[in-house]
Every structure is written in C-alpha cells, then in structure tokens.
C-alpha cells in the first residue's frame, strides 16, 4: 500500500470485535503505561460491546473528568451506574473506583466490628488505604472480583491504574501479602504475642538492634500505632489473601483477555514489551496490542525526502510559496510517521505473533458518547 505500511513488518491483526462479541469473553483488562489512552480505550470497548448486544460494565480508575462525563459519571461513588444513550439491545454500566471505600468494605467484611474499628481509625490504615500507590491496584483487582462474582454483567472491562510501571497492578496484591507475611511484621507482632511485655525484650540481639533503630527512625508512638495496626490487620489477612489469589486465578482464566495499550513512543512501547513478556510468564491470556495516536499521512505516496527536495526547489525559484509550505508540512508529517514506525519496530520484532490494532491520532479528546463510539469504530476498523 503506502510506504509506511510497506516498511512495517506484517503482523497479525487484532480483531477486537471478535473478542467482545465472543460470549466466552467475560473480562477485558486494558493495561499499559500512563498517558497512552488506556481509559479511553476501555470505555470505547465497553460502549462498542454494549452496542453489539453485550451487557457490559466498565470499571475505570481515575478517569479524566471529560471522559467520565462522556459516560455520565459525575461522582466517584464506587457503584456501577447505567450509561444513558447506548444504542441497541445491550446495556452499559460504568463506575469509578473509590479505593478507600473498597478497602473499608473489605475490612468490614472480614473483621469483627471492634477489630474493624481499630483498623479503620488507625493512622497507618488511613495512609495505606488512601495513598499507597499499590492499594489502587489491589482495590481495582478486588473490585473486579466483586463485579465478576455478582454475575450482573456478562462482560467486564477494566482500566488499570496509572501506575509508575504498567506491571505494578500484577504485583501489588502479592506485595501486600508478602509484606504482611514478612519478617518485619513478625518482629512487630512479637511483643503482642509475648503477652504485651515491653517491646522486643524477648528477642535476640539482632532483633534488638533493629527495634532500637526502628524506634529512632519512627519514634515510639509511631511504632506503637504500627504494631496495633499490624496485629489487627493480621487477623483479617487470611481473607485478604484468599481473595487476592481468587482474583489472580480469574485473570488467568480463559474468559479473560488482556489488551495492552501503548502509544508509538519509546517508553510506552518498551512498557508494552515488558507487559507482554510478564503476561506470558504469568500465563495470563493476551489478546493483543493497541497502539493509540498513530499519525498517518493521507498523501503517503509522496516521501519526506521528495517533498523536502521539491519544497527547496520551489523556495529557491521563489515560486508557489503555498505549495512549498504545504510540502514542508507534509515532510514533517512523514518524518513523524517514520519515527513512530521505528519506535514500534522493536516490539514487533520481539513479539511477532502478538496481534496489533492501530488507532490514528485524533485532534480532539473524547467528550461524549459519539466520541467514544468513533474510537470504538477506529479500534475495530483494522485492515
């Protein structure tokens, strides 16, 4: 076709319609690094699935205000809300994750009222539940599990949190578990288990150093708060872990499809590569890669080099100023397209079997359902 696609190696095409139309697909997870249009992709897939007859729910984490508005979401209330204006037989719900509330609910479900109160009012819990970057990931997975168990929807589309690293959400539940199981925690728990005697007395010299350092580092009050929190949390953690493992299994199940989202930029493509490799290691089902914001030139028959040369020629002759300017513009566009191809090259050669869908850059952000519908069409229209 044009010279751009000629240079890119032939890759399998990601057929998203086939995925969202397949009644066996129950969960679609959109993941990728920040700023690549993950949330928009998730919302557009949700709308498209609903308009093709599915009963879908989109779980978004921290969506941009306008995007949330485009689905009629005005508040973060942790409950799926019906989206108005969906065409056809299917239906669409959307929700924004309230991570603190989700966390509170887990605590309330797993601890007796007195213990729950102790945990909920502890300053460490407040910090953990409202600002730990991993908590958002954990709670997104928890919410996904809840939505799936409810059985109210036949397709759940999850947008993953804007993590520092796209991989964080896979690791967060395990990290929380490892942390609660770690030696430090056992150390902190020791005094409580030794019948409330003064801290660390019964422990060996090595522990003594650590305890002293911790006290110096944190102060005695902080240490006490922490001990209380940890022992209260420990009592409910069994339930925690069981849920995390359940959700993890859910992600490995055949009804799940991971869609890795990227933009044709170095960092985003590298993250996408890591992610694809990680999913394979974890035996999680990868559907394919979506590359958003791809720049294409309608006049691709005209190469960057030829247009630049012609523009120079016209400029030297002092003729056709407008044509010269347009040719310069076109050359810039072709250069950008070529660069974007190069940024994708590494991924494509490292993962030649991963299906890819490309979505052209749009000049305007999505404001309404019509905009989302358009993104859905572009996602599906791969040739």
């Amino acid at each position, binding site marked *: 076709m044009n010279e751009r696609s000629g240079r890119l190696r032939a890759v399998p095409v990601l057929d998203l319609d086939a995925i969202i139309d397949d009644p066996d697909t129950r969960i679609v997870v959109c993941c990728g690094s920040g700023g690549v249009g993950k949330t928009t992709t998730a919302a557009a897939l949700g709308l498209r699935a609903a308009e093709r007859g599915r009963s879908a729910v989109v779980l978004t984490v921290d969506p941009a205000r306008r995007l949330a508005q485009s689905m009629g979401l005005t508040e973060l209330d942790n409950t799926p809300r019906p989206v108005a204006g969906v065409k056809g037989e299917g239906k669409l719900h959307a929700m924004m994750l309230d991570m603190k509330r989700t966390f509170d609910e887990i605590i309330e479900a797993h601890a007796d009222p007195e213990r729950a109160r102790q945990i909920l009012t502890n300053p460490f819990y407040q910090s953990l539940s409202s600002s730990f970057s991993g908590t958002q990931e954990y709670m997104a997975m928890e919410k996904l599990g809840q939505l799936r168990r409810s059985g109210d929807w036949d397709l759940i589309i999850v947008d993953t949190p*804007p993590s*520092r690293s796209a991989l964080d959400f896979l690791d967060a539940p395990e990290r929380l578990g490892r942390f609660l199981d770690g030696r*430090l925690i056992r150390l902190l728990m020791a005094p409580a288990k030794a019948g409330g005697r003064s801290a660390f007395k019964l422990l060996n010299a090595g522990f003594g150093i*650590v305890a002293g*350092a911790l006290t110096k580092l944190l102060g005695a009050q*902080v240490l006490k708060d*922490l001990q209380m929190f940890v022992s209260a949390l420990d009592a409910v953690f069994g339930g925690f872990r069981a849920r995390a493992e359940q959700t993890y299994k859910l992600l490995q199940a055949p009804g799940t499809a991971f869609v890795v989202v990227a933009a044709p930029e170095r960092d985003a493509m590298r993250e996408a590569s890591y992610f694809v490799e990680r999913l394979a290691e974890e035996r999680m089902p990868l559907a394919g890669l979506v590359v958003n914001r791809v720049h294409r030139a309608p006049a691709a028959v005209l190469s960057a080099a030829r247009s630049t040369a012609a523009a120079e020629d016209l400029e030297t002759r002092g003729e056709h100023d407008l044509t010269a300017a347009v040719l310069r513009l076109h050359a810039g566009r072709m250069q950008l397209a070529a660069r974007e191809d190069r940024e994708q090259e590494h991924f494509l050669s490292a993962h030649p079997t991963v299906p890819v869908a490309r979505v052209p850059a749009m000049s305007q952000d999505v404001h309404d359902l019509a905009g989302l519908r358009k993104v859905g069409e572009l996602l599906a229209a791969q040739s």
Partner: protein
Amino acid sequence: MGGRSGRIGEGPLGSLRSVRARDTDWDGVRLHVVTGKGGTGKTTVAAALALALASGGRRVLLVEVEGRQGIAQVFDLPPLPYEERKIAVAPGGGDVHALAIDPEEAMLDYLEMFYGMRRAGKALTKMGVVDFATTIAPGFRDVLVTGKTTEAVRRKGKDGRRVYDAVVLDAPPTGRVARFLNVTNEVAGLARVGPIKNHADLVNGVVASPETAVHFVTLLEEMPVQETLDGLGELRETGLPPGGIFTNMVRKSLLPASVLDAAAKGRFDPGELALGLKAAGLAEGGANAAAVAEALAEEIAEHAHRTKLERRERRSLDTSGRPRYELPLLADGVDLAGLYELAESIHAQGAA
C-alpha cells in the same frame, strides 16, 4: 541569600562565577521540580533544563526518583547507580551530574547521617523495612527521596558555597506531585512528633521556600493542559511555589493564517496546489497531481483544525498567569543532539 545574585558581590576571584550570572526568570531558584502528565516528555524537559541551567560554567544535579532510569535513557547511558556522577558537559562549560535515588539506599544514608547507624540500617533492609516504607506508608518513602534531594540543594563545600548551583528534580507525574512534595502533611498523620516529623519539616523548609519552583510540562492538548491547570491549583492550595509551564513538542505552522482559516472551514482549494506540484515536478500527469493535491488538502484541513485547538489550549494556559515556554517537536525524536537543542531553546527563552 545563596542565589546567583549573591555572588555578584564576591571578591575578584570569586567574581569569575558572577560574570556568568545572567537574568533569567528563575534567579534565586535552586530546586527546579519538573512534573507533567505521563507522555508529555517530563524527563526530557528536566534533562534539557539541567543542561540549560549548567551552561556557562555552573554545576547542576539532575535527580530522578521513580526508579525508571529515565535519565540514563535520555542521555544514552548505561543505568545509573545510586551515586552522584557527572553525565554531561553543558554548552560554554558547566557540568550536569545525575543521581537516580533508590529509596532503600536513601534510607541507609538517612540513618547514617542522622544517627550513625549504617549497620543497623543494613539489618533493617534485611528485615524488609523498605518494603514496609513503600508498602504501608508511602509518605515515608517520599520523605526519604525528597530528603535526599533537598540535602543536595543545601549541601555546602569546604569553601562554604553550595556544591550545586541548581538541582533539577524529575518528579512524579502531575497527579501525584503535590502529595509527593507536601511531605510534612503526608507524614503528619503518621508521625506527629519524632525524627521522621523533624526530617519532613527540614525538607519542607526547602520545598516550600522561594528557592524552589515547580514547573509543569504539557502538550497543547486538552487533557495535559487541564491537568496542568489542576496541578497549579493544587500547588496553590498546599502553598508550594509554582514555576513555569513548558509546552513540549510544539509544531510550527508554516501556513499563513488565511489559508488555515479557509482550510478549517473546508474551503481550501487544491487547484493551486496541483499547479505547484506540477511546477515542482512532483506530478507525472494531471490526474496524479490532482489526486496528490486532494490528499495534501486533507492533511492541511487536519493541520488547520489542530492549530485552532492548539490556540484554544494556549489561551487556557495563559489564564494561569504563569511564565510559558515552548519547546519544538524534534522530528527525529530526542537524541543527545536534540537534547542540546532543547536546552538552547530553554536558555533563549529566559527560563535558564
């Protein structure tokens, strides 16, 4: 104080440096915090700003905190250790040093510096204390990281002068930056008194002072512009000092306004273009020239539309009242040469 202007009064030898003092928008600022939405080129701009600040014989430290090794990638270097090392020479002399802060190492530093407890620190690390800090109390992690950064800002050499003329911090993205910097508040709920609280107060003394400026990197697109404005609002609420707005990847429009206007309204006439293409020898036959002209007209219409939207985003940014700088889109991506080009542009616009 310790700003550049402070050197002007120094003796004849010391004045060697003061000669290089120049008027920039951020004289007196020693800690430049650079934030931005993901995908806006925050790390690239931080690196270019560090180069620009170092130019003319200064010493600048570029710090990253998220463990992404973004600095190494931008400067095309192998991964950086947790150690300040010179990574680049600025135009006109001057050095850029870099430091990739690892929270675990920062914790050991902190224990050693304040308590002389390196060994205990190692034991703590083995016990998973860092896991603890990053898992249960992100505020602690942030304090360690910002603490290390502000220590570099305050550090003085044997001559009593600050070791670095400026420190550039490649900070977390816009959505998290206020919380990241507002450490005192972040640990307040956890530690009302005690060493961590004191440390946080020390950090806050630098971060909330006029020696600090928090710069935003954005693109001329709706979402990053909105996030920038929201981020500035958050800074205002938390009392952190706002800096400038760096609009990245700006594409120059070569077309006259009248053409853009017509194209935006769908009234661009490709006829003239077809003639121009023929004159340039780009068309083998009449039909071919017309087809190419049509395709180019489509590109022009898109370009006109985008230019219009960009104008709107610029106006939004102007409402913030912050100094603005525009950095060009580099057609071939940011390589080392491109980085110097951006640094030059930052310098020329008076940001450094």
